[in-house]
């Protein structure tokens, strides 16, 4: 490593204090900070500017670097997450190694949170500490990496499909991994979609076809990501393709196989409201367009017990010897779009534990409404197939209930319940619908108007309040609740109850996140790097998220996120070369004993240990965990050495 700043003739540090209009100057005496800085050992220049990040402000820094031959710069301004890049670029343009410039955060960590003279005193201390840091910094060079130009998209719901199409349209190869036999996700199950009531499959299937025909998209359905190693731009993924036992290219969808199959199991696509054979296609427009033999429910493949389906398959598409396949790929970026499940109604003790057949969840109701559903779009209740005359919809079922269920709002239930009530009324003209709600959240374009339409319908009664109990009584479902607006107790003998169950992350999200070494929030949804400024990125560079996997959302939002994530991924795939900050952890191989204490501590899996520890510079996110863990002081962060930190603390705490 090159010699640290001072250099042989001692350090020449410049300090630049920003007013940030009134943002800093409102509480901090900026002039005084600059004066105090000017007197610090090693500081040869200190000045102020109204807006240091403006062009003239940056020019001031550049000129001083040249004219004062600065060996280090401290800009006392806003958080480094705002303008560190700006000023380091400026320093580089003026010929100073950018890593010899540091930000002293006197806004977010000072002027915004303090008042009175103490704020100025603290600003001075922050500047003093950063001057000490800069004096110990070494010039560094960013780490460069080559990368793969393929994108992996995990989850083939609408979000995954959209992301795949956008990346592919930008000219990059995409591998789209879907766990079920078809892409389409939940949207394929929906009947019509709010707020426009267009048929869900009609707008979805063209996208599915686009994806299947796209020369740049390779769909691996019935597959799961098994292992992910590597790092930004260079992820190695192992994908396990389950055998479908049907050769997709040969299958002509005649369906004879399913007819002769003696097995009947609940059909997942219809949420268990209908049955399917062991060899099946989820729905006619499925992509890939082929039947799938579900080995778990087949009477037996090894040894072959039944074999009826192959006998009737004229296309000779069935291959009982098909083997599981492991696909290994190098990808540059990963988009996770694994979507959601509904919180199981079995968890709702107050609503019958899922044991009352005519208490169903929203997705089941979607299937009852759907023309392709088990009742061909006629609303008939599961227990006896009768058309329900009175239907109770319960919103927030399992949502917004921190004591018993999920604390969060599932965001879309108000909307789809209004949709359900309206579609039910279109379907059963003399039917009556009751909607229990806590409050209505319809914050989207045309959403409020849509809910109002439902509320204005004189056979849809919106009741504000919670339902206390739902239970079966003869062939009716009793609903006990309270209308909190009138204070009256309400008892409804309903034919059908629809629970707007909370949205939860798809099963297996946590496992997948672990394989990807990305984080999930407390409720299990994927966690973004920053809730406002980096909403599509995971903390591990090169991994993005889209759709309901990140949190409850509707289709427009899922699609928008998907396009955003695709743009982010394309940013990586299209880069000439990738660079990574060199301010990462570093092992002193002369001190490292190979004790391996550090490796499991690294949240990014950046450390491997043989004789000594090695840090993968690309994976390291500079959290410093390993430095704290290393018992022998062999691990350190570049430009954040123990000695620097000690001097910074001393400078910050010094009297005067």
């Amino acid at each position, binding site marked *: 490593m090159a010699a640290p700043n001072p250099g042989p003739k001692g350090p020449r540090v410049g300090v630049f204090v920003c007013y940030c209009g009134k943002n800093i100057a409102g509480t901090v005496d900026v002039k005084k900070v600059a004066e105090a800085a000017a007197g610090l050992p090693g500081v040869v220049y200190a000045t102020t500017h109204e807006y240091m990040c403006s062009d003239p402000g940056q020019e001031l820094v550049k000129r001083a670097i040249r004219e004062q031959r600065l060996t280090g710069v401290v800009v006392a301004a806003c958080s480094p997450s705002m303008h560190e890049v700006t000023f380091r670029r400026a320093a580089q343009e003026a010929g100073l190694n950018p890593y010899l410039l540091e930000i002293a955060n006197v806004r977010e960590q000072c002027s915004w949170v303090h008042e009175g003279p103490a704020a100025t005193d603290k600003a001075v201390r922050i500047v003093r500490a950063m001057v000490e840091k800069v004096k110990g910094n070494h010039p560094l060079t960013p780490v460069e990496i080559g990368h793969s130009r393929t994108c992996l998209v995990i989850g083939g719901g609408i979000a995954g499909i959209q992301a795949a199409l956008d990346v592919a349209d930008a000219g990059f190869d995409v591998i789209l991994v879907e766990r079920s036999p078809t892409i389409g996700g939940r949207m394929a199950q929906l009947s019509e979609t709010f707020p426009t009531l267009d048929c869900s499959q009609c707008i979805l299937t063209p996208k599915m076809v686009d994806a299947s025909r796209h020369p740049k998209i390779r769909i691996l359905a019935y597959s799961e990501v098994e292992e992910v190693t590597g790092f930004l731009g260079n992820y190695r993924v192992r994908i396990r393709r389950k055998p479908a036992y049907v050769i997709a290219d040969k299958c002509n969808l005649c369906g004879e196989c399913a007819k002769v199959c003696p097995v009947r199991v609940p059909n997942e696509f219809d949420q268990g409201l209908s049955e399917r054979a062991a060899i099946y296609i989820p729905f006619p427009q499925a992509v890939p367009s082929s039947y799938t033999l579900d080995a778990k429910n087949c009477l037996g493949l090894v040894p072959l017990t039944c074999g009826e389906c192959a006998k009737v398959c004229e296309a000779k598409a069935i291959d009982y010897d098909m083997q599981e396949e492991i696909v290994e790929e190098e990808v540059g970026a990963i988009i996770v779009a694994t979507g959601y499940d509904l919180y199981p109604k079995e968890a709702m003790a107050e609503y019958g534990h899922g044991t009352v057949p005519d208490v169903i969840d929203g997705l089941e109701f979607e299937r009852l409404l759907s023309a392709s559903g088990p009742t061909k779009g006629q609303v008939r209740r599961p227990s006896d197939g009768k058309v329900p005359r009175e239907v109770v919809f319960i919103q927030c079922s399992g949502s917004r209930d921190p004591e018993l269920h999920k604390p969060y709002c599932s965001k879309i239930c108000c909307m789809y319940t209004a949709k359900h009530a309206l579609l039910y009324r279109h379907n059963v003209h003399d039917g009556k619908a009751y909607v229990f709600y806590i409050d209505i959240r319809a914050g989207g374009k045309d959403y409020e108007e849509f809910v109002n339409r439902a509320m204005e319908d004189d056979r849809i009664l919106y009741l504000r309040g919670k339902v206390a109990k739902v239970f079966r009584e003869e062939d009716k479902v009793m609903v006990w609740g309270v209308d909190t607006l009138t204070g009256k107790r309400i008892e409804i003998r309903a034919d059908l109850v629809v629970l707007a169950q909370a949205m939860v992350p798809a099963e297996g999200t946590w496992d997948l996140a672990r394989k990807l070494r990305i984080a999930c929030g407390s409720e299990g949804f994927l966690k973004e790097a920053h809730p406002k400024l980096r909403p599509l990125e995971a903390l591990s560079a090169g991994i993005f998220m889209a759709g309901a996997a990140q949190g409850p959302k509707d289709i427009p939002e899922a699609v928008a996120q998907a396009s955003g994530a695709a743009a982010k991924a394309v940013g990586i795939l299209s880069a000439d070369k990738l660079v990574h900050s060199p301010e990462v952890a570093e092992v002193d191989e002369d001190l490292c*004993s190979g004790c391996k204490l550090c490796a499991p501590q690294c949240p990014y899996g950046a450390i491997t240990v043989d004789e000594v520890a090695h840090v993968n510079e690309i994976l390291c996110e500079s959290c410093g965990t390993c430095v704290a863990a290393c*018992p022998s002081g062999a691990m350190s962060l570049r430009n954040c050495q123990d000695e620097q930190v000690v001097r910074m603390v001393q400078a910050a705490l010094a009297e005067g």
Partner: protein
Amino acid sequence: MPKVAVYWTGGCGGCDVSFLELGPKLLDVLSQVEVVFWPALVDTKRQDLEALPGKAIDLALINGTLRTQENVEMVEVLRSKSRYVVAFGACAHLGGVPGLANLKSREELLVEVFGGGFRPTPPPGGPSEHALPELLPQTLPLAGAIPVDYVVPGCPPPPALIADLFERALAGDLPPAGHVFGKDKAVCEECPRKKEDRKLDKIVRPHELQPDGERCLLDQGMICMGPVTRGGCEAACPKAAMPCTGCLGPTPKAGDPVLAMISALASLVRAGEEGEAAFSAEDKVLDSLADPLGTLAKYSLPSFPRLARSCVPTPVRRGP
């Protein structure tokens, strides 16, 4: 012929005996040096030492902690008569086991050892050379009283390190001052045990467990100081199924071994699933460490007094 002195201040004497571990090599060494002062071996007194001209001794090996005023005086004389002074063994190097006495003030210590009514009084004839030497308020490592050129660490120093010192001294090839005869890397480097399952989910004391012969002792719940401690001992203790107690002192950049080890243990501890729910269970694991200072600061307390200071509840009072 190089002139050698060996002296023993406040210690157990094990360091003096440790030379015997050199075996036949010791005869070689003895045949090549002249022992001018070594109370345990040759009859020499303080007056003999004081009578020597300045720097008459080439190499003075001093073991033991500094506990009394007399200890300090003796090492000052030795310093003035010697070209090179070696802190020999953990007590001289760091303060050693006797240094744990620093957890108490001198006065509390006397009461603790001799009982409540004890009062040190000068002998009837008044202060004279026969009086008991005064106890220092705190024990000190050798470097607390005089400049030290080299350290041969250990409790007692491993024979290989002693041999290394003599070989280099006799060859006229001594390293720059400040050198510690030991490795820069931690004991783990020499330890053959497998380090795989890096987590701590319970803490056990050595007598509570017959450890697995292959796996790292830390992974089995024994507080092994190996990761913070200089190698050079060939991991003798862990090889014999005993956790390292840290006698060779911290590696050059570990700093206070207590803090380094606490930091490492806090990183290692795992109880149950991730997340806040596990914190209290993890605290319990760490709290179950019996005698934390006796375990983590067994030899180092006087050299890293910060912790000791924060542990001593009563301020140190002036002597009688």
